[in-house]
């Protein structure tokens, strides 16, 4: 007789965590992606603030400004549609982690230059949600990264109807 699965695994088998992760991540990225795609030049100006690219590499910056919002929307649609979940989650984690680092570094720079308390710093991070408080933003992004990891780790599959009859593809 096999061992009783861990609490986390049993929770995962209900499909509730993965469905929540899909809905939250999907809706969030569609929302932020649409906001950025609506005003690509404003998003480009925000990107420039981070000084990630030299003046000669403007076409790299343009490429990121053009593709990132629509990639976010596409990933959000995939998550809500239940398509290519793990790959999409990896793409989102791949966007969230460096972005969180870059935002943190920018806040640290503001904190050093202007001697403002770190958690009092507010600026438009170019996230598509307007001006945000840095500590709140970091907590939010950490949560989104964790949700991406849930989708990467989860064994439950796609359909929302899995809530009533979860389908497991593993044999324990």
């Amino acid at each position: 007789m096999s061992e009783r699965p861990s609490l986390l695994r049993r929770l995962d088998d209900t499909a509730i965590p993965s469905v929540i992760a899909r809905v939250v991540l999907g809706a969030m990225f569609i929302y932020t992606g649409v906001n950025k795609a609506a005003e690509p030049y404003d998003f480009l100006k925000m990107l420039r603030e981070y000084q990630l690219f030299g003046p000669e590499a403007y076409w790299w910056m343009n490429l990121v400004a053009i593709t990132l919002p629509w990639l976010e929307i596409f990933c959000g649609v995939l998550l809500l549609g239940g398509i290519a979940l793990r790959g999409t989650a990896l793409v989102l984690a791949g966007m969230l982690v460096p972005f969180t680092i870059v935002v943190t570094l920018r806040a640290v720079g503001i904190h050093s230059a202007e001697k403002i308390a770190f958690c009092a710093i507010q600026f438009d991070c170019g996230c598509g949600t307007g001006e945000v408080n840095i500590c709140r933003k970091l907590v939010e992004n950490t949560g989104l990264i964790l949700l991406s990891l849930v989708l990467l780790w989860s064994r439950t599959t796609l359909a929302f109807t899995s809530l009533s009859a979860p389908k497991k593809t593993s044999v324990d």
Partner: protein
Amino acid sequence: MRPAILCQGLRDSSGRGRKSCREAGWAIIAVWHQPRGRGTGGLHGGDAFVKKIGKVVLESLIVTVVGVGLALIANAKSGRGLDISKDYFKVRTAARPMDPANGKSDGGSETKPEPGEDPDKNKEDKYAEGKRLVKEAGFQAIEYDEVQRLYRDDNNYRNGAYIFVDARPASEYREGHIPLAWRIDHVKSDEMLKAPPLQFLLPSAEKIVLYCHGGNCEDSLLVAGDMRAAGIDQTKIHVYVGGFTEWWEKKQPIEKGDRESGDITEGGGQ
């Protein structure tokens, strides 16, 4: 792996049989799913762990490539799409060589101190940096008093001799702008400058006053460069470095909505 339809996830409570897609009302979407039987549903330990990671990475690459492709198509179709090859933050130079004798201000400010003037005076000027950038780019910086004088000259302001141009985004323009100011979007400036009525109004104007937020806002300078590249005489182009922020702080008239909407209010002050 073989493609499977999404509806295969819809099982009845006994785990046997399945509902048809029509019964469930789901659209048929082709998805990849792991084969049954072995523990392949998650990224957990096992002989096929590396293979699973590889599959996920491949899936992510496919998502990225398709997403980027869709993004490029959407950008090309969008009216607000960006040109990947354009440097949007470089002030464009003249179509012909600049005459070093040109560029004298006829009422605007100089950021470089005159001989004998205290060079520290400019340090107290909060628009000093903006003025320096304007001057470096070869345009005239203009201050509030002169802007107000031009605005109050009803005759010349309304007959097109003096033209004000707002370089801010459309949403901010509609929230409030200097009455009768036109709006030029730096992203679409090439098209806007070649379209009527600006195509005819700008070359025939005596003075063109460009503004954005004020201070270090560069949109007005970028649009000034676009105008110069379009062949408009740069000696006519003045950049109001105090910008809309200062105009609003001085409680000057603000027009909301579109140009000539008639919805005029007073600015908010400090």
